[in-house]
């Protein structure tokens, strides 16, 4: 808490954060670290969160329409293949978000930036959500096409382990009461985890191929219809925008909670500013 109070000194005017004069005063000094300041980030995320949410909704509607009504029925799998439109974006984001988590954890570690830690924490639940979604939709897809809810296929197994890594990070961070220690310990675990991800992935692939061979492979068609591809890309963008929106909103809440003692946060939640 002492560190946050000392860095608060240069933001002494932040209690006027809601007036346009303060906004104008900050703007000329736009640097790489402008939004590493919690007060600045809070305002930026307040704008970007809803914007990303609207973008996510728009892309989701367009993508679902394309996927459910425009894209043709698959010749091999029939209608069931349409789960690909959520399955593939979810699987993709589950992996990208773990790397993003580790990236912000590393940034927090090396630059000692509080916002980076808050970001890493904000990403974790969304990443875990997408991992669960990928596993869940994959299971729903596997039942009619493979005839089973689950196989210990290399991809499924590594996705499951990814979920365990997310859960481990979230459990560790939640178990440590001291914010600073929780941030750093979580960051270390995330970095160790991301170093291990390729090792885990290849060990699982080799384990699978050494043991049972490819008894089941993804029964995907060779050439995707262009409408299918467009629908999948639209929904991928929707998932990206959703992830950004949720992470901004969550990071905003984390920052406000952590900076509860600072002048700008107090001014923000003061009764006169309610409703803004």
């Amino acid at each position, binding site marked *: 808490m002492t560190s946050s109070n000392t860095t608060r000194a240069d933001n002494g005017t932040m209690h006027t954060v809601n007036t346009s004069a303060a906004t104008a005063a900050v703007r000329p000094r736009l640097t790489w670290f402008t939004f590493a300041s919690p007060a600045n980030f809070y305002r930026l995320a307040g704008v970007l969160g809803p914007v990303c949410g609207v973008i996510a909704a728009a892309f989701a509607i367009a993508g679902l329409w394309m996927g459910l009504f425009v894209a043709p029925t698959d010749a091999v799998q029939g209608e069931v293949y349409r789960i690909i439109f959520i399955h593939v974006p979810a699987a993709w984001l589950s992996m990208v978000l773990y790397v993003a988590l580790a990236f912000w954890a590393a940034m927090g570690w090396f630059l000692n930036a509080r916002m980076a830690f808050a970001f890493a924490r904000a990403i974790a639940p969304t990443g875990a959500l997408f991992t669960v979604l990928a596993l869940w939709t994959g299971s729903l897809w596997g039942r009619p096409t493979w005839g089973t809810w689950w196989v210990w296929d290399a991809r499924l197994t590594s996705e499951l382990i990814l979920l365990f890594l997310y859960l*481990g990070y979230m*459990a560790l961070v939640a*178990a440590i009461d001291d914010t600073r220690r929780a941030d750093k310990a979580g960051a*270390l675990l995330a970095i*160790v*985890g991301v170093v291990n991800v390729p090792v*885990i992935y290849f060990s699982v692939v080799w384990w699978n191929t050494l043991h049972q061979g490819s008894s089941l492979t993804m029964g995907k068609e060779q050439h995707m219809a262009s409408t299918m591809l467009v629908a999948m890309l639209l929904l991928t963008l929707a998932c990206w925008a959703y992830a950004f929106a949720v992470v901004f909103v969550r990071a905003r809440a984390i920052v406000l909670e952590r900076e509860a003692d600072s002048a700008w946060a107090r001014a923000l939640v003061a009764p006169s500013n309610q409703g803004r």
Partner: protein
Amino acid sequence: MNGAVFLAVYQRDLRLAWRRRTEALLPVAFFLVAASLFPLGVGPDPQVLKLIAPGVVWVCALLAAMLSMPPLYAADHADGSLEQLLLAPGAGVAVAAAKAAAHWTISGAPLVAAAPLLGLLLGLPAEELPVLFVSLLLGTPILSLLGGVGAALTLGLRSAGMLIVLIVLPLAIPALIFGAGAAAAVDAGQSPSPHLSLLGALLIACLLGAPPATAAALRIAVE
């Protein structure tokens, strides 16, 4: 790395373990009891037991190693001696390496020694027993090193025991795959050497990577 610190911490931990011998034997007792539950659970069919034996032995070794991790730094943290230990120059890595080495000597080595016995109990053929032994010999130090990172990260937390299991087990999966796979490869008529080579590679990587990570985690915990 500070060699004097390493030796001092290592010898001290061994001496402490020697003075509480029953406690030091708990992991290997857990290992034997847990593994003997499997025939009771899955049935005494020798064919089934032979098939699952390497995996059972390995999983039980993994759990025994993780469950014996929480006390590794706890007493030194509680009485403040850990902070004093970390004051010496370059001591963090030395302390982490010494603690992992002591953990392996006290609870890892007995597991390795007991593993062939368990293999016999589960009906593992004689030609697989040496492979299981070697795979555990290479694999249990990995568990001690990775577990050290978990123990340091969860130092002083209320639910440290379960947390260590949750955060370290995913990282230990490659060791489990190659370790149990070595004996299974012999069963399938293949050479176990690729598995053992990969296990050795993992051990080298952990020897290089785990002590610095543990030292960093210790510094976070005591700062």
